[in-house]
């Protein structure tokens, strides 16, 4: 599978990572190499094999649906790059 620059740009956009236009050819080439390596998987017969969901045969635990934690606003906001009036602050989202 060869990845073109347009696809590389689309993936970067989906991943929310800014990539300058002049970096796209190298990035596309790297993706192509890695995906070429991954494509060995096509040699494997996976017919009737279920995709693994859990490596150990255990079910996820359930617990009672009740509040066990909270009232930690100050701690939650402590590491925020921009916190104001008890909220995370971000650039304008809605016009």
């Amino acid at each position, binding site marked *: 599978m060869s990845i073109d620059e347009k696809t590389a740009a689309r993936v970067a956009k989906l*991943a929310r*990572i800014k990539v300058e236009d002049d970096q796209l050819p190298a990035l596309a080439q790297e993706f192509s190499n890695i*995906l070429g390596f991954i*494509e*060995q*998987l096509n040699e494997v017969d996976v017919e009737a094999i279920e995709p693994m969901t859990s490596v150990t045969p255990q079910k996820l635990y359930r617990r009672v649906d009740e509040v066990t934690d909270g009232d930690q606003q100050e701690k939650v906001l402590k*590491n925020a790059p921009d916190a104001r009036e008890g909220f995370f602050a971000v650039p304008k989202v809605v016009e």
Partner: protein
Amino acid sequence: MSDLTKMTLAGARDALRKGETTSVELTETHLKAIEGAGALNAFVHHTPEIALEQAKAADARIAAGDAPDMCGLPIGIKDLFCTKGVPSQAASAILNGFKPEYESTVSQNLFDAGAVMLGKLNMDEFAMGSSNETSVYGNVVNPWRRSGNDAELTPGGSSGGSASAVAADLCLAATGTDTGGSIRQPAAFTGITGIKPTYGRCSRWGTIAFASSLDQAGPMTKDVRDAAIMLEAMCSFDAKDSTSANLPVPNFEAMLTGDIQGKTIGIPKEYRMDGMPDEIEQLWADGTVMLKDAGAKIVDISLPHTKYALPAYYVIAPAEASSNLARYDGVRYGHRATLDAGDGITEMYEKTRAEGFGSEVQRRVMIGTYVLSAGFYDAYYNRARRVRALIKKDFDDVFATGVDAILTPATPSAAFGLGEMKDADPVQMYLNDVFTVTVNLAGLPGVAVPAGVDAQGLPLALQLIGKPWEEGELLNTAYALEQAAGFVAKPNKWW
């Protein structure tokens, strides 16, 4: 007392209990060793105040007769573990300045047992790397050098700081994490012991996530006994990790008898790779003879899907990473890019992540994004998860025939030079994990045991792979191998 930094965990524990030294003395000696070892760049956040406070508390506990095995023993903590009030940034610029308001379960378990934290250890950014060259703190240097050559070598990765620090006697032991080999490969490159337990043994809570279905914490120590002691202290059932195993944690150290009479050791033919150095081949053959001489039965086995482990891993791990690392968006913690006039929230995300993530992390996040994107999910991600099921079945089938453990090389080479792989294709670097990554995909315990040196005087290791939840038996086999191999070499101090 002889040099306190040369001690093992077991030796220091016994000395503390006999009153031959104190935790404060042990801690001060190690803090001094760290101060003099800046050239290794292993410790990146120093916590001497915390260490001395913990050491004093440990001495009080020992005096009161309430001393768990780890009590008073100075260790290093990989930067991937969140430690309350202490920088914890997974060696990434995107977590610059992040000081968690909470403690990871593994480090809390160690502190509850009385362990002393000397500081945080360098690593590959977000544990993505095999040479500790992707860290925002710069490269870690291996204390080992090729004989007659001053070239700086990699300690391996991603737990390179942990490996370098233990090998250089800067701490008695260290925590590591292993997603594809990140405990075992650096342990092998530095002549120390490292075990990745069964998936679910150590809680992942508070450990910064890379690939959640593969990540496991484990100890990196000077010998197998120390690995048993520290692993027991790290393990626990934890309701805060939904994949944590609700099983009793055995006394692993008590299981170290060295008796492996009648055990069956499998030698997988698929691990005999083309182009494998003769020295690795010889080490593997020697290890096989050692286990046979110790009374084990040796059988040839086949793990037919081995070849597909690395490509499956390089779908699954990046896919999970792209999801896990979506949280680094410049809103809740860490770095936020300076924005230009008119930039909106999308520009904030894109600039923050471009500035904050290094190139290997960006590459893996984008590969993960691609394999999970509409139209490719089945072809890549689901196919890789199917192949993963087959890889696990290979091991299940072998263990069902009565095999107790599997012996393989730990790495395809000895430590290589820093910068040597700079111009190589990323895939070349990924090949470092060829012998270790199967174990993560199958969720099994695996341990790297130093077993010899190469012609240039660098350590080489063998890997033993065990059955799920049988870390005790696995460590006992590793103990027998350690006894037989008699590896005692240490790096010459140059730093």
